């Protein structure tokens, strides 16, 4: 068992991180803080999850979202997908293991992975609408968000959702407000089986080691940790019994990375585009300086007058 985080004290606590600890800020450059905070991570042990949705409930409660009462869509998921009011979602898949002929119920808590290299932040055009703290938390700052939806295209995990009410993007904050005062995320607090635990990324990796050894001893030869290197690692990690086939878990991508299209759009296109336009304007200016205006001469006017006078014949 991983020691749970102690309950908060009743006295005021100074926040442990703030704007001074930003390592990335959308559409802006920040100078890196002198000291990097210990990286935090949430570890979701899929093999211990019982699908109770206490995490979803705790998330709604802590973040004070008010999702409308849904309807039964005929699936276990409720609501059927992430929404601007539902930052985390239990996704259920039934899988028949061809090796054992066992029906396995693979339940994954979906939500923001807090990538070390966040695609949402890379795509975002609004300065300061998406920030990354040095402890690894990627957060949306709603007063700076313009609601364009570029973060949705940037995200390799299909997580952000745009609210139709205030036209800004929402996703899991990793409970940055709770973490700032030494607490863990609300979902981790509520999880009855400790399938969700929270701590430093190092601690979580160590804890995962023990879990993976245990799962392997129970016959899950491919058990492993999901911390995809394609996005520089994530600050939400999974322990999977079938780490060789993450797609089994409701389409968790095997090798997620920021789409090359997004990289091209936010990289070469941006710089080459402005260069091309600058050069075009410069060439025009230079041409005018060197060649001067193309003026109509008096002879041209006389020629035209003669043409009109002579019914379309050049000479008189």
């Amino acid at each position: 068992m991983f020691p749970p985080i102690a309950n908060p004290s009743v006295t005021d606590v100074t926040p442990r991180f703030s704007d001074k600890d930003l390592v990335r800020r959308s559409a802006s450059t920040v100078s890196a803080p002198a000291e990097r905070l210990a990286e935090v991570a949430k570890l979701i042990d899929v093999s211990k999850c019982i699908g109770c949705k206490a995490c979803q409930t705790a998330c709604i409660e802590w973040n004070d979202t008010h999702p409308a009462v849904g309807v039964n869509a005929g699936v276990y998921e409720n609501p059927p997908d992430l929404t601007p009011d539902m930052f985390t979602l239990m996704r259920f898949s039934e899988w028949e293991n061809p090796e054992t002929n066992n029906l396995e119920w693979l339940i994954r808590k979906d939500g923001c992975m807090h990538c070390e290299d966040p695609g949402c932040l890379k795509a975002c055009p609004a300065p300061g609408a998406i920030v990354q703290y040095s402890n690894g938390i990627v957060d949306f700052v709603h007063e700076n968000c313009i609601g364009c939806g570029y973060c949705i295209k940037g995200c390799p995990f299909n997580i952000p959702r745009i609210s139709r009410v205030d036209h800004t993007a929402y996703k899991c904050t990793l409970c940055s407000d709770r973490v700032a005062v030494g607490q863990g995320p609300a979902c981790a607090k509520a999880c009855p089986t400790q399938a969700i635990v929270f701590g430093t990324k190092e601690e979580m990796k160590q804890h995962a080691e023990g879990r993976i050894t245990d799962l392997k001893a129970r016959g899950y030869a491919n058990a492993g940790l999901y911390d995809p290197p394609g996005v520089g690692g994530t600050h939400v990690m999974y322990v999977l019994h079938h780490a060789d086939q993450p797609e089994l878990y409701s389409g968790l991508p095997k090798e997620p990375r920021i789409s090359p299209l997004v990289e091209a759009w936010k990289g070469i296109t941006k710089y080459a585009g402005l260069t091309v336009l600058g050069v075009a304007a410069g060439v025009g200016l230079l041409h005018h300086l060197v060649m001067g205006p193309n003026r109509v001469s008096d002879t041209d006017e006389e020629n035209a007058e003669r043409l009109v006078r002579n019914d379309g014949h050049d000479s008189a």
Partner: protein
Amino acid sequence: MTAHDVEPGKVHPGKPVTVDRYTVGARINHWITAASLILLALSGLALFHPSLFFLSGLFGGGQFTRFIHPWIGVLLFFSFFGLFIRFWKANLWKREDRAWLTRFRDVLANHEENAPEVGKYNAGQKFVFWAMSVLIVILISSGLVVWDQYFSAYTTIGQQRVALLIHAIAAVAIIGVWIIHFYSAFWVRGTIPAMTRGSVTGGWAWRHHRKWLRELVTKPGGRSGSKPAE
């Protein structure tokens, strides 16, 4: 009415001769399109590069820029469609356009007299017309795909990524074409009155679009008033 002269035009004898080039309708249509294109470029550039995000201030902030940009795009599309209907015939490729292009260096060096006579539009103007037409179709279609508020549900995220890249590249291209269009109108003096007052001088028509001028002069009813007494 010949293909070179799809707009009813008249030559007014005098000193200097003046030649009608654009009707009031065409001019209003043009300036609505022009204003839309400039506003689209400003709001689009604000979302394109972080160092240009300040341009969103012209539109009342990021949220309003995001909201208004696609609507201006819709206006531009329909406004340009009007221009397309008016001008497409006169922009069809003609034999003399190829010959004109081979003399393009002379034209740039202000030796237009070495280039062959052309009709209402030269090859450069036709390039601008068709480039604008094609790019506007690309921009409106890719733009609808990434118009999150109304159309995000109809395409996949993968398709939206493709659309965003295409939209950005096409936008850069159309601003480039606009630079050519704007500079040419400024460099070739006497051009701008065609789109403001609707007419150019006879000398301008003689120098730049002699074939068009000849057609107007010889066309029955192409001249206003009676022949000046001599």
